[in-house]
């Protein structure tokens, strides 16, 4: 089945701008979360973070 041009939704400029704004915010939030988990793990466990049974 092919998608007809008539069935597709084209975003308006303001919708595109808002989506881009939200995407950037989500990317920044995810990056911040990664940093928080990384630093928080080191702060909580210290060198013991790397002690595990082989």
């Amino acid at each position, binding site marked *: 089945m092919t998608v007809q041009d008539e069935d597709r*939704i084209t975003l308006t400029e303001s*919708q595109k701008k*808002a989506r881009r*704004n939200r995407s950037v915010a989500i990317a920044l939030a995810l990056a911040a979360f990664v940093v*928080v988990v990384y*630093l928080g*793990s*080191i702060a909580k466990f210290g060198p013991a973070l790397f002690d595990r049974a082989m």
Partner: protein
Amino acid sequence: MAIIQNERLGDTGLRLSEATAGDYFALLKPRVMSLVVFTAFVGLAATPVAVNPVQAMIAVLAIAVGAGASGALNMWYDADIDGRMRRTASRPIPAGLVRPDEALAFGLVLAFFSVMTLGLLVDWLAAAMLAFTIFFYVCVYTMWLKRRTPQNIVIGGAAGAFPPMIGWAAATGAVSLESVILFLIIFLWTPPHFWALALFKTDEYGRAGIPMMPNVAGHESTCRQIFAYAVVVAAVGVLPWALGYAGAAYGAAAALLGAGFAWYAWKVLRMPREDAAMAPAKALFAFSLLYLFGIFAAYLADALFARWAALAGA
């Protein structure tokens, strides 16, 4: 090619969002969040134990995000009455910027991540208290009490009073008398703060059908209760000094701020019913914010000074 805009999709229930990140940030009630961040930070930093600074920052961040999640879930549930009050009509949901189901999903995701982050990286007691606070604010206050009883903000005020206890628990892993007194200061401060607002917003609350104390018990009764709570909070504010774990400088600051709070509440008590401008109620509302900031700042300064003095003497 069809360009479909919101006006046309609105009829079918579909809608292409034009909400920006700023609209989602507004769902977090940033002004309330700033007070939560400050009181949680004081609860955490005023403990007598040394706290890892990274864990301290993560704890405050998680508490802030948890408080923001509560705000988003509150706006999701209250979108109908928010639209009827001038003070809240421009919030993202009644303004048509964010859909209710988007706000619900946003709030739930943030609540989950804030609690898990606090538990996994800092302390599980603090995380459990944060989860309870979110539950209390959303289910007990917003869904149950707010539209049913004039005691809504008295009982619901507990949700706003928990952050310093959570901060304390994040640092020490425990609940103690000191943290309970910080809780009590905010808990007892909440009714006079909100009832001062409700006095000069009586019409709006009435239009929205929210049974605030002035709408239910009347002007005189509300003013009497405001004064009674202000006197009690002034006394409780001095307790850390009276019990011997805060210094005289804190005691003096708390006594002065408490006297100011009681004085402004007294002026509200003397305010005639016909006073349409309600300047004393507006003044009390403004001073109540200064009171809370001032007493927590004094408590923090006192605790940090005591720690510095102990280090200098060692």
